[in-house]
């Protein structure tokens, strides 16, 4: 693959010190983000999606500790490649060199992520004023342009508005404008549409896509909504219990999933053809990361689990050049287990739907 890597995470492990003991939230994550593309990180609550991106931004909460790994950020903005090891930076250095300026973030809940006592215009200008020492007039003009770009009408009038005067969808647009204010190279969206209603969701997703087309920015999405993933992602990484269990091109994950957990996730997603039958759910509850893992963390909930799953953690098996999955089912000596029939049916339908839509 000849694409340019922007971000490369290798063997990242993070633990949190809590009153109940040490929580190993991230256990050896490897991920890559390529220039101008979109990576979606999928998984249920507590699978370590948010912790991973917080580590990229250097905004882990105080009790979080990075145990091992590297995060390499390659910048091509100035024309030449500059490689930076983000984990070697102190919090202060991260703030000065990376945060907001090179990597920006859009948060989950726009209702709470804006400062209620500051006009939105100032909140957008703040980053430029600090990072690039832009003068007030230029910053103002750029902020108005950004508000226009994210689809806010009468941007000049809105500059003086306070967050409580805007609707949820508009606030999320403002948050995106803030993120874009310093022309970052990577945009991290932490469940950007979870708190919004469905019609606004679609609009925000389209907006981010459009911006990506215009600016060539690379995007990381964090979500547990597979519908969102299908719409936006080039690459998908499925996380479970602090590990990436399957990753590959979006089509590979949706049409040829290989990990039983991905099967479960896809089966549990309702679609238009879901009849009145009970929706599939993955049995059990997410793995408690306070416990020591022995074997595969998913084994307990996996109806295809092999004996070895309870004793030895599966390595990443390569399926295609881009597609990897961590399950013993892919081992050459494993019994041939294929995905459940119901899911096969559903994937077939999905494919047909896409074909239909594509043909229109």
């Amino acid at each position: 693959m000849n694409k340019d890597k922007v971000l490369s995470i290798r063997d990242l492990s993070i633990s949190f010190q809590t009153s109940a003991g040490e929580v190993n939230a991230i256990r050896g994550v490897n991920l890559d983000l390529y220039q101008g593309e979109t990576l979606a990180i999928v998984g249920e609550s507590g699978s370590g999606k948010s912790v991973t991106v917080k580590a990229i931004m250097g905004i882990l909460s105080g009790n979080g500790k990075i145990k091992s790994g590297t995060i390499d950020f390659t910048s091509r903005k100035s024309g030449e490649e500059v490689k930076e090891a983000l984990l070697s930076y102190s919090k202060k250095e991260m703030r000065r060199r990376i945060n907001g300026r090179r990597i920006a973030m859009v948060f989950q809940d726009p209702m709470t992520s804006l400062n209620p006592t500051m006009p939105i215009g100032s909140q957008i200008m703040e980053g430029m004023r600090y990072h690039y020492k832009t003068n007030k007039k230029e910053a103002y003009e750029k902020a108005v342009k950004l508000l226009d770009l994210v689809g806010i009408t009468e941007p000049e009038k809105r500059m003086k508005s306070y967050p409580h005067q805007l609707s949820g969808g508009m606030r999320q647009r403002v948050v995106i404008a803030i993120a874009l204010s310093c022309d970052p190279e990577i945009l991290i969206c932490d469940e950007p549409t979870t708190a919004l209603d469905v019609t606004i969701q679609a609009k925000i997703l389209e907006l981010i896509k459009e911006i990506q087309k215009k600016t060539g920015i690379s995007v990381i999405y964090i979500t547990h909504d597979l519908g969102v993933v299908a719409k936006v992602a080039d690459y998908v990484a499925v996380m479970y219990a602090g590990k990436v269990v399957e990753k590959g091109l979006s089509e590979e994950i949706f049409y040829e999933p290989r990990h039983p957990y991905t099967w479960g996730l896809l089966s549990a997603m309702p679609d238009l053809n879901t009849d009145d039958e009970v929706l599939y759910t993955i049995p059990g509850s997410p793995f408690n990361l306070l416990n020591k893992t022995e074997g595969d963390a998913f084994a307990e909930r996996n109806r295809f689990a092999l004996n070895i799953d309870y004793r030895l953690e599966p390595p990443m098996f390569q399926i295609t050049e881009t597609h990897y999955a961590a399950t013993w089912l892919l081992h050459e000596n494993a019994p041939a287990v294929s995905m459940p029939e119901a899911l096969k049916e559903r994937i077939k339908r999905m494919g047909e739907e896409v074909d239909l839509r594509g043909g229109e």
Partner: protein
Amino acid sequence: MKRYIVKRICISAATLLVILLILFLMLELMPGSPFNDEKLTQSQVALLNAKYGLDKPVFIRFLNYVKNMLSGDFGVSYTISKNTSITTLLSTRLPISIRIGGQAVLMGTVVGLILGLIAALNHNTILDTLTTVISVLGVSLPSYVFALGLSYTLGYQFKWFPLLYQQQEAVKSSVLPTISLAMFTVATVARFTRTEMLEVLGSDYMLLAESKGLPGWRLILIHGLRNALIPIVTVLAPLVVSLMTGSLVVEKIFSIPGIGSLLVTAIQSNDYNVIVTLAFIYSAMYIGIMLAVDILYGLIDPRIRLAKEDDYEQS
């Protein structure tokens, strides 16, 4: 906002008038008169009453008093310092009280804010515990305990500050009373600041501000403290008021010639004009502080400011 402030000032003035009227009625109902001297004969008392206009009905006296007050005349003292005008009586005492009270308010809020910030930023460390201990002590011990403790240690043992108030060393003498008065405010403000700041620090907008890569001081002061201040300002008003009432005891301990001790003496000797004037001053301060806090509230929180403006636009 301007119209709101004007309206509030008008309401405050009306409130003060009502307070004054109630004071007059209460003094009327109180037994005794300023002229309790056994040597005075019945006719002499009647003469005195006539001289000071005390023989007139209470409402006439009230109207006269308000009229004089508007021209700056608060009347004369009857017993404490015969025939001196209240203005001269207070001219030496009021500045002392205001100075100590003001210093205490300033110290209470500033030190309280700093302690609270330190505790919140060093959450769950020894500094946090230390400030919590100080807060608990400050809240649970009454101001006179601090006053006595301070005058024993810093005043008597170390001789750093005078034990009793001395006119010649006004600044030095005001230190111990200020500290003992301010302790309660320091403690309460510190506790509130800590809780509010912790909540703000954990909020989403702080995370967003941090992800913008802003420098630490800007994060804490502009994004953090301003939001934490909103609830703090609310508790500040009653605290400042309690400083005024607390000053009565502390003034006694350090024998400060302020208005607190004067008020007690005036009540004991039925010196009507002194009581009315001092009660009026206390009420005016109280109402003024409430007004100031309300305006401050609007300045800090745009939601309140804008809501008030909207109210007026609609009406």
